[in-house]
């Protein structure tokens, strides 16, 4: 190591002499970093629970880098989508997730890819954490054939293995998620289903019907309310008689969690997953989080909340900044290393956006495909009685 250091400094000296300027570079090797550190995280509020998730948690350097990279990728992906939308390359609905990255990343860190997850329409982040690539996601947003749903689903209907979308009807995904959990229990595979909904959806009747059946039948489902304080333009105080969303399951134990801290989310999800897998039935988590964008791209997001509020959250609670500060102050990474990741992420997003912009749209011949599964080909009526389109499974 000593030899390497002297080699590096020789090279540096040579460079500096060549360029005639002072070159500042990090001469530290990766062996200098702390491999793991213990962090004190916020306690969760508990409902009908005697035990709680851990408040002293260990994060390794590798984990930290992975969370950082994933969150940064999601952040940049959403911002690029914003850009493409404003250029009218993405049209239709586009609900962006920036600000809420810690939720998706923290949850995935505590479950397996063999577990199941379903969410509502603010789904780009989850499509990524569940295994979709940035390329496929962006091409789906632009409606091209390279999209994860071949351009037929769009922003709100992206699917991949053990990820059931992307659902457009507010609240409808909650019974679906409990159904997936029923299948897990039925098949005795020790898997669970994470079933997400927002503070707006939390007042839907079908969610309470689902709470009842999930508890009655002890389904292995983790209900998660992503409370970002606003259901479209309606603040939680104006929508709910009780804004303690983690208590709304009444007979289902609940946790309220700081959704801006990826480690809080991870620990709470670990706790919840253990609860489910031990056969105790459903559990409810409320993640307190925030979205920087408006409800969708057609909402500027400042008519029902102040710019000061948005700015305050950005400066004090941004999930990526929090993680970055933690890693830097515990000597788990260097500024340059993280910058390198940023550069790589930016490139990945640029390439994906390039693909999403240039990939062709799905051909008209495929318009009517995938109406039925495992069916012989049928003829589908077009826009007039003499126009017949082909549909294959």
């Amino acid at each position, binding site marked *: 190591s000593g030899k390497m250091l002297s080699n590096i400094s020789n090279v540096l000296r040579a460079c500096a002499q060549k360029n005639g300027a002072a070159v500042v570079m990090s001469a530290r090797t990766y062996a200098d970093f702390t491999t793991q550190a213990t962090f004190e995280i916020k306690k969760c509020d508990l409902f009908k629970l005697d035990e709680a998730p851990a408040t002293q948690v260990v994060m390794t350097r590798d984990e930290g880098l992975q969370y950082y990279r994933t969150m940064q990728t999601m952040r940049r992906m959403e911002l690029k989508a914003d850009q493409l939308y404003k250029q009218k390359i993405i049209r239709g609905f586009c609900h962006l997730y920036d600000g809420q990255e810690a939720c998706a990343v923290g949850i995935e860190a505590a479950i397996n890819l063999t577990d199941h997850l379903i969410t509502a329409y603010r789904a780009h982040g989850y499509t990524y954490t569940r295994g979709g690539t940035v390329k496929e996601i962006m091409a789906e947003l632009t409606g091209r054939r390279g999209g994860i749903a071949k351009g037929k689903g769009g922003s709100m209907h992206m699917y991949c293995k053990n990820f059931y979308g992307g659902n457009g009807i507010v609240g409808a995904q909650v019974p679906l998620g409990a159904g997936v959990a029923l299948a897990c229990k039925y098949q005795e595979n020790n898997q669970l289903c994470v079933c997400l909904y927002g503070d707006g959806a939390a007042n839907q009747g079908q969610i309470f019907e689902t709470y009842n*059946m999930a508890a009655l039948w002890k389904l292995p489902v983790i209900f998660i309310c992503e409370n970002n304080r606003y259901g479209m333009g309606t603040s939680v105080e104006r929508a709910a008689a009780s804004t303690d969303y983690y208590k709304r399951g009444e007979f289902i134990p609940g946790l309220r969690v700081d959704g801006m801290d990826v480690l809080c989310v991870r620990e709470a999800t670990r706790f919840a997953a253990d609860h489910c897998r031990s056969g105790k039935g459903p559990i409810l988590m409320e993640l307190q989080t925030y979205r920087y964008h408006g409800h969708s791209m057609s909402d500027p997001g400042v008519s029902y909340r102040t710019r000061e509020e948005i700015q305050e959250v950005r400066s004090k609670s941004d999930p990526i900044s929090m993680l970055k500060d933690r890693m830097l102050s515990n000597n788990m990474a260097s500024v340059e290393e993280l910058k390198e990741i940023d550069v790589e992420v930016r490139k990945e997003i640029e390439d994906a956006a390039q693909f999403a912009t240039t990939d062709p749209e799905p051909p008209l011949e495929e318009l009517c*495909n995938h109406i039925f599964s495992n069916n012989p080909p049928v003829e589908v009526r077009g826009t007039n009685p003499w126009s017949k389109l082909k549909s294959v499974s």
Partner: protein
Amino acid sequence: QNAVSALRRREFHRSVTVRDALNQAMDEELERDERVFLMGEEVAQYDGAYKVSRGLWKKYGDKRVIDTPISEMGFAGIAVGAAMAGLRPICEFMTFNFSMQAIDQVINSAAKTYYMSAGLQPVPIVFRGPNGASAGVAAQHSQCFAAWYAHCPGLKVVSPWNSEDAKGLLKSAIRDDNPVVFLENELMYGVPFEMSEESQSKDFTIPIGKAKIERQGNHVTVVSHSRYVGHCLDAAAVLAKEGIECEVINLRTIRPMDVESIETSVMKTNHLVTVEGGWPQFGVGAEICARIMEGEWHVSSQTSCSTQRLQSVQNPMQKFKFCMCLREVPD
């Protein structure tokens, strides 16, 4: 238990009620495929609100036959989710009137998903239950939903008439990898029909999407589905005495509709009457007339065709009185 049921069958000379045919279909499919299960209100310990699932809970237990609370939207969604995750649920609505509580799950979660996911996510589910008019149950419990569900791509909609239809079509529906809306009729449950040797087999299925000509004739084509097929056959028998031969077509499937069979018949008869229990506006009969008018018959025929729709009176209470107005169809 198999020996007893075999004996029972021989005793009745293979006369089986629609209820028992449906029961047999579900029993056989539950036995054949571990992933099949039944859920709905009163399906398990009560033996079914109309006793269609009698004996199934006793035989298969809590895991395969599940009593649900009165939460249509919730349990229909749970059934769809289970189908997405690899099971093959049969979701019973006590009547299809209650399916309106859950119609979003049927259409938006079940019917559209395979398309929106470009083939990644199939939804192999059957929604079944009694549909349409019963005996004096009043407006809220008497609506026919054939037209509503048949309007939507991504769904198959089936409407059996007799026991053979009921058994063969339900087995096909359960084996189908797509969402199927299976419309039964409460007044038909207790009606016995002779069932052929072939239909007693555990592998007997009737293809979805194919109509059946129940009675051949040259003078007028009469198209119907569900209970009213029986009425059509009765009317045809009366008319035969006057020398009018009706060709009675039992649709069996509403969507995808077997328009070809109707067209072939109308090419022959040049007269069409549709008979249904639903309301006339935007109904099954309206669709049939439109398709015939647009189709081969209209293009190639030299004579003018008269089409008439017979259906329930257009008021909320569907007290359907079937009039023998076939006699009044103009020449």
